[in-house]
């Protein structure tokens, strides 16, 4: 559905050249749900905007829905749906009018456009607001309208740029329900950008981590976490028996870092364990055998933030600090 080859974008800002995207290769198969994850300024939106022909690549090629973005941008636009970061509805327009016109822009006839608009209003819980002007909608309602606008022409490939930024948790969940249902019903291919790691984690099958304009990881969230981060294990033992398990824990960490700090006669060890759930009981037994029984244990599954930290040495939340 998407194939790019060394896609690059450089901007010139005040005579200074900024390499926003540095040669990314992306392949997305039909029906996939892919998230571009990265801090603000990483190049995810720039990449998305090149794929949707809103930006012209500086070099490299991209084929989207079977059409070359440089050779036939209008052809690409006709085959995709795009839901940008802002609200798509014109302030003074009525919701229903905007939806129908959107359908007409994509070449639908008026009967089909009206029927489709009605269908989407219902499925997006906007039916009562059809004749409302956009400016009178709440934030969540506007975002649902954006999704409806993007879906008017039933695209087989849908791009969403930061779809849930600024939404409250309830509206986010609601939005995701709609997107997931769309996918289940129509097998739509979906590509989105997000800087919410939990969103990329729970919603996408595949996560492409972008940092400084480059792809630094591309896999399922589960595999990224298992391979790159591992579970975080914290065990506490009595201070006088700590020496007996230090070596044991180092070996369990398999070369990874083992942090320790002591307080109130207790030493707390922290380390990463791949397949922690399976290894932790074994480790506990070994600690017992070594005469240093664990006084407490905590096992936390990894997050994509841990993956990002592992890959870049930075937290996702720290943003694009270099």
């Amino acid at each position, binding site marked *: 559905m998407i194939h790019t080859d060394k896609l690059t974008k450089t901007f010139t800002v005040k005579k200074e050249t900024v390499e926003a995207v540095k040669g990314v290769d992306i392949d997305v198969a039909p029906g996939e749900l892919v998230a571009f994850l990265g801090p603000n300024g990483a190049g995810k939106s720039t990449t998305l905007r090149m794929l949707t*022909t809103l930006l012209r690549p500086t070099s490299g090629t991209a084929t989207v829905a079977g059409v*070359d973005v440089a050779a036939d941008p*209008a*052809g690409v636009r006709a085959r995709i749906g*795009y839901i940008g*970061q*802002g609200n798509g509805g014109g302030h003074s327009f009525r919701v229903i009018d905007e939806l129908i016109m*959107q359908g007409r822009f994509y070449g639908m006839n008026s009967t089909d456009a009206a029927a489709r608009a009605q269908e989407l209003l219902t499925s997006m819980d906007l039916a009562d607001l059809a004749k409302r002007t956009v400016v009178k909608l709440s934030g969540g309602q506007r975002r649902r309208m954006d999704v409806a606008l993007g879906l008017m022409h039933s695209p087989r490939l849908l791009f969403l740029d930061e779809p849930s930024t600024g939404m409250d948790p309830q509206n986010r969940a609601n939005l995701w329900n709609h997107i997931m249902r769309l996918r289940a019903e129509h097998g739509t291919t979906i590509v989105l950008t997000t800087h919410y790691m939990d969103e990329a984690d729970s919603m996408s099958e595949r996560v492409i981590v972008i940092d400084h304009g480059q792809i630094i990881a591309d896999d399922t969230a589960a595999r990224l976490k298992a391979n790159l981060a591992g579970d975080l294990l914290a065990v506490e033992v009595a201070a006088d028996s700590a020496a007996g398990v230090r070596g044991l824990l180092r070996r369990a960490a398999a070369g990874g870092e083992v942090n320790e700090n002591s307080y109130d006669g207790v030493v707390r060890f922290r380390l990463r364990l791949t397949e922690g759930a399976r290894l932790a009981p074994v480790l506990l037994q070994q600690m017992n055998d070594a005469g240093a029984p664990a006084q407490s244990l905590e096992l936390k599954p990894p997050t994509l933030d841990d993956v990002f930290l592992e890959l870049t040495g930075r937290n996702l939340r720290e943003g694009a600090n270099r």
Partner: protein
Amino acid sequence: MAVQSTEVLEKPGLVQILHDTRFVFWREMLLPLRDPFSLVFSLLQPLVFLGLFGPLLGAAVGAPAFGGQSTLQWFLPGVVVMIALFGTSMTGSNLQYELMTGSYERILATPLSRSSLMIGRALKEWAPLVVQGLLIALVCIPFGFVFYPLHVLFGLVILGIFGIGLGALSYALALVSQNKEWIFWGVQQTLLFPLMILSGIMLPIEAGPDWMKTASLFNPLTYLVNAERELFAGSVGTDTLLGLLAASVTAAVGLVVGVRAINRNIN
């Protein structure tokens, strides 16, 4: 396959542009149609202007400057050009709101051709003029205005062509002044009044000093006003032809500048 030039590879045909323009125009027209009150005011404005400025003009300047025409016959076409000027030069201001929200970007992501985005919007600002122009012509008949419907209609078409050009320039100005909205207003207002005065819309340029007459020759609006005056007086001649030419050149320049402005944003 490789991308190598910044040249636009998108070259939609005329049929495509006309087809797309229809929908862009129609979307914009939904605003006044859903809120017809705005139209009532826009219809009243030229009448007020004509009623208050017209008598003063006749009294202050005197009949000879009008080339033998009645004040009304001379002034009315000027008012029509003025409405076109004010209306279509505002094309970009309505775009500014859409630039601030995501509405412009959403439409940019549709397959619509770029020139149709400008033409459709410019024509929306021009459309009320057809009603306004015909209305003020009808209202003026009792006051000695002689109405030549076909000539007036042709005059409105010429203004439409001019309006596409000015609308596209206004559109480009809005894009260039994105995030600095005051620039749009500064430029629009600064250009509007000299252009208007130097075209002889309000007062006959023949009454002014030589330098003004010379300056007016470089103002496309001058030719437009002259064309409208000729047409409203019921004849078609050199002035009409020059006016049509000036309108067409404005449209061509406007669209080239406008499409460049849109494409500049994607680089």
